């Protein structure tokens, strides 16, 4: 155990040092990424900056905030370590608060008209935290999104624990900050892709959780770029 703790400490110190060094040489850039139609070996690529086109986004955009995208929050979200349903509603609020013409995320209690479906399911292994699946047509406009949170993760609201091994004891269970992951998934659902480690954004993958509860300026710029600023 002491060996493991020491190793983890050394890994954390090493990662922190590497990040500090990276931050020193690479100033944060506003390089929000959008999703583009998949191609090649990897299903999702990224189109960086503002020039790549076309990117995937919702067809629904609003000149005012009256156009909604209905979000269904499945009951499985309330049976986890923390109430993921509450956290999903909180995440939706973050994107609704952006001064852009992105669709207003609105909760629905019916599965007959939902456009985003959010649930907690087993991924079959503890390495995946969350996922977002899009359905889109020929013009790359999203018509449906499906967000899933892995029930094999022990969810909390303040920290991540390295998820490197199959859980065999309580201290080795993969743990993750639900606020961070949920907001990250809703970022995907809005049309944002992963962001570089050098950038401060909710769309950075695998960063320390506590600093990434909020939707950051880079994320907001991405949403505004996709949908336009709210007049």
């Amino acid at each position, binding site marked *: 155990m002491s060996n493991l703790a020491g190793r983890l400490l050394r890994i954390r110190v090493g990662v922190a040092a590497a990040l500090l060094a990276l931050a020193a040489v690479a100033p944060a850039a506003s390089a929000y990424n959008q999703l583009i139609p*998949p191609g090649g070996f990897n299903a999702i690529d990224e189109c960086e900056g503002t020039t790549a086109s076309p990117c995937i986004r919702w067809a629904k955009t609003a000149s005012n905030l009256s156009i909604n995208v209905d979000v269904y929050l499945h009951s499985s979200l309330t049976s986890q370590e923390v109430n993921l349903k509450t956290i999903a509603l909180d995440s939706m609020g973050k994107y609704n608060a952006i001064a852009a013409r992105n669709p207003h995320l609105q909760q629905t209690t019916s599965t007959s008209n939902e456009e985003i*479906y959010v649930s907690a399911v087993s991924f079959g292994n503890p390495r995946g*935290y969350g996922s977002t699946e899009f359905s889109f047509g020929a013009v790359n406009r999203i018509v449906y999104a499906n967000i899933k949170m892995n029930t094999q993760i022990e969810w909390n609201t303040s920290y991540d624990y390295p998820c490197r091994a199959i859980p065999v004891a309580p201290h080795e269970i993969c743990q993750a900050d639900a606020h961070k992951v949920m907001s*990250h998934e809703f970022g995907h659902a809005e049309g944002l892709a992963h962001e570089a480690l050098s950038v401060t954004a909710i769309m950075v993958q695998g960063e320390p959780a506590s600093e990434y509860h909020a939707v950051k300026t880079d994320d907001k710029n991405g949403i505004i770029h996709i949908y336009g600023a709210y007049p």
Partner: protein
Amino acid sequence: MSVLRSVTAMLRGLAFGLALLVILAVVAALYVSSPSHSPIQPGAAATPPSASSAPVSATVELSGAEPAEPPVGECLRHVKVVDAAPSTIEGMTSISTGVFIGRISEVGPTRWRTTGEKTPSEQQEISVDNVMRLVRVAVEEVAAGAADGTMVFWIPGGTIGCHTFETAGFPLDLKTGDEFGFFIDANQAPLKGVTAARVHEMWPVQGDTVVTPEQGDVSIAEFAAEAEAAEVLSP
């Protein structure tokens, strides 16, 4: 006379009881011998087909029921982004029952991975998670766990009608002869009655190197050595 009547009544009761016991014993014997009613121990979890109970057979039929298209109006692409821990050789090995280098020898048609392979009726079920292909793979070099000869695995995604279902790391256009480093889990069958291990990830092999998502290009020897040093799951 009353004594005689009492004895007779007792004998009748005894005969009735014995007959009842015989009937119960016969019913119990039939129940236990039935394959669909094997007794379940308290606390025991139901287990899916696994490599240990049902070997991943090279003779598995790759095709199934003819899949019907999703009941939605337009042709759609369904693409999944997964946020996960970094895919290192050690980390992937820890969630796998087998790690090996193999070459695809046959790719089956896309099938619904739903009960009875029925087309989902709910929108949220029209997902890459419910679509799969079976592939036959010739094992070339075992790095960790159990793998041998030619085996059949299932991978997510595929094409049904004008709908495509994709997730990162699983090419839509798999070809016979393609070579990969496979991480498989024999504890996760795709469907009831279909014996095939799940492929967690498959990394392309180019020449003598494996193209890894996190560790760059590594030689097959290095790939095998790192996987061998890690601990695999029990099938």
